[in-house]
């Protein structure tokens, strides 16, 4: 009597396979489309510079930016600046995300605590980070610490909210199941709460990953002597627009890389959502 269901299941699998083939083709086209857009944008940019004859300090040509990039890369200074910004981002993410997880878990589990804390969390979030950043630099100096603090602060909120919502969305029936199985606190966390909340937490993580770049740059703009944000500031002072372009484009690359890491992690951990 289960044959029909089995057949149905196989049918679905087959249809899925046909679907994967077509999806593969579509994905192939997509993979072609993204670089194509990039190439056309660069081409348009080059044409614009040639046609309008902008001076380099207004809009440098792509070739000029590329030359500047090679020049900066050659003497090793660029690598240093990238390293400094990356370090700020990674440390800031580590601190921001770990506090967000811990506090989010606590607030997600205890409604009264969450009710008490939520107005303050919302209020703190309504202050723009650029307004607090100078204050943080005054308190923590213009070194690494202040940038890490700004990055941590800006990455904290999206993951905090996602964690609270994620933990609270855990199916109460599954909670009952775990209780009836006499699961320990630890098992409850690892086998139920974490996997159940993960899809929502990842939404916050993606936002935090992208914002971390903003945090590091804002911190550096407030006063620094190294980093890609510092280069932007330096380029502005020297009217070295190609340098600003190099720094900005590298920031874009870092943001993309971070997003890619989170998206890959998500695809691996949440593959059950797409079966």
């Amino acid at each position, binding site marked *: *009597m*289960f044959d029909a*269901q*089995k057949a149905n*299941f196989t049918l*679905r699998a087959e249809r899925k396979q046909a679907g994967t083939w077509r999806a593969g083709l579509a994905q192939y086209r997509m993979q072609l489309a993204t670089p194509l857009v990039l190439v056309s944008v660069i081409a348009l940019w080059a044409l614009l510079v040639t046609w309008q004859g902008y001076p380099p300090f207004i809009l440098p040509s792509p070739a000029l930016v590329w030359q500047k990039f090679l020049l900066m890369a050659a003497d090793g200074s660029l690598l240093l600046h990238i390293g400094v910004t990356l370090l700020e981002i990674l440390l800031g993410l580590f601190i921001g995300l770990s506090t967000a997880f811990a506090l989010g878990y606590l607030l997600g589990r205890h409604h009264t605590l969450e009710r008490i804390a939520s107005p303050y969390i919302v209020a703190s979030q309504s202050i723009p980070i650029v307004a607090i950043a100078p204050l943080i630099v005054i308190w923590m100096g213009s070194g690494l610490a202040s940038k890490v603090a700004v990055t941590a602060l800006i990455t904290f909120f999206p993951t905090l909210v996602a964690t609270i919502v994620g933990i609270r969305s855990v*199916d109460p*029936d*599954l909670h*009952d*199941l*775990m*209780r*009836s*199985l*006499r*699961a320990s606190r630890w*098992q409850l966390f690892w*086998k*139920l709460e974490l*996997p*159940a909340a*993960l899809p929502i937490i990842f939404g916050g993580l993606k936002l935090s990953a992208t914002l971390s770049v903003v945090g590091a740059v804002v911190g550096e703009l407030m006063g620094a002597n190294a980093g890609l944000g510092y280069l932007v500031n330096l380029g502005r002072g020297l009217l070295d627009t190609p340098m600003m372009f190099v720094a900005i484009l590298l920031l874009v690359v870092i943001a993309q890389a971070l997003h890619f890491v989170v998206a890959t992690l998500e695809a691996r951990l*949440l593959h*059950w*959502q797409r*079966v």
Partner: protein
Amino acid sequence: MTTPSQTPVFVVEGVAKGFTDGYRPIQALRPISFELYAGEIVCLVGPSGSGKSTLLRIMGGLIPPDAGAMWFEGRPHNAPNTAIGFVFQKTNLMPWRTILQNVLLPIEIQQGKVSPVQRERAEAMLATMGLKDFEHAYPRQLSGGMNQRVVLARTLLQQPRLLLMDEPFGQLDALTRERLNLELLRLQAAEGVTILMVTHSITEAVLLSDRVFVLSERPGRLIAQTPVPLPRPRDLTLISTPDFGAIATQVRSLIGETG
């Protein structure tokens, strides 16, 4: 008919429960007392809101009663016990675990890891449930009836001595429901587990039960323990017999009296 042994497996004595809905207290369950005997199936019927689910959750140790006491296998009972299996109204599988991983969850929790022997037992259990080819599928890929069978497999694999079922087949279509009823009868006969099941279906209650408990409108009160002296093994043809009809009518009128 299975003859219930004379020592009760589970004793409920004077158990009562109330809730507050914010302003005023609501009595969900008036003091209730009964006994369950080894190897019997008892169905609990009654109007909505008569506290059936509350009673089951209290018996499962998930919520404490306001008053009264319970004994499981002669010992005082007031917390979840792994010898008591629970099948909830809603299919409670973890969507991120495969069918096999879901079935093995209780073993993982109680023993930390799963031995090859236990894995084989789980696979065999799934096979008897007609789920052999779905071990590595995820719950969302299966129908409601199949998922409820997975829940049943997961629960039975723990070899519970008492099975508490809260409208386990309530969300299934009539055909699937009948089929699972028969499967439950077959498994119960094989494993000898004691079952207390909440149901809204009088037919289901009479088909499965040795006794049918009737609860009154809220606050719930046990108004009857109707014996069902029909022969076993039972199948669906039983439903059209006059004896079955008579018992079903009796149960229905008992529920009717409460309203």
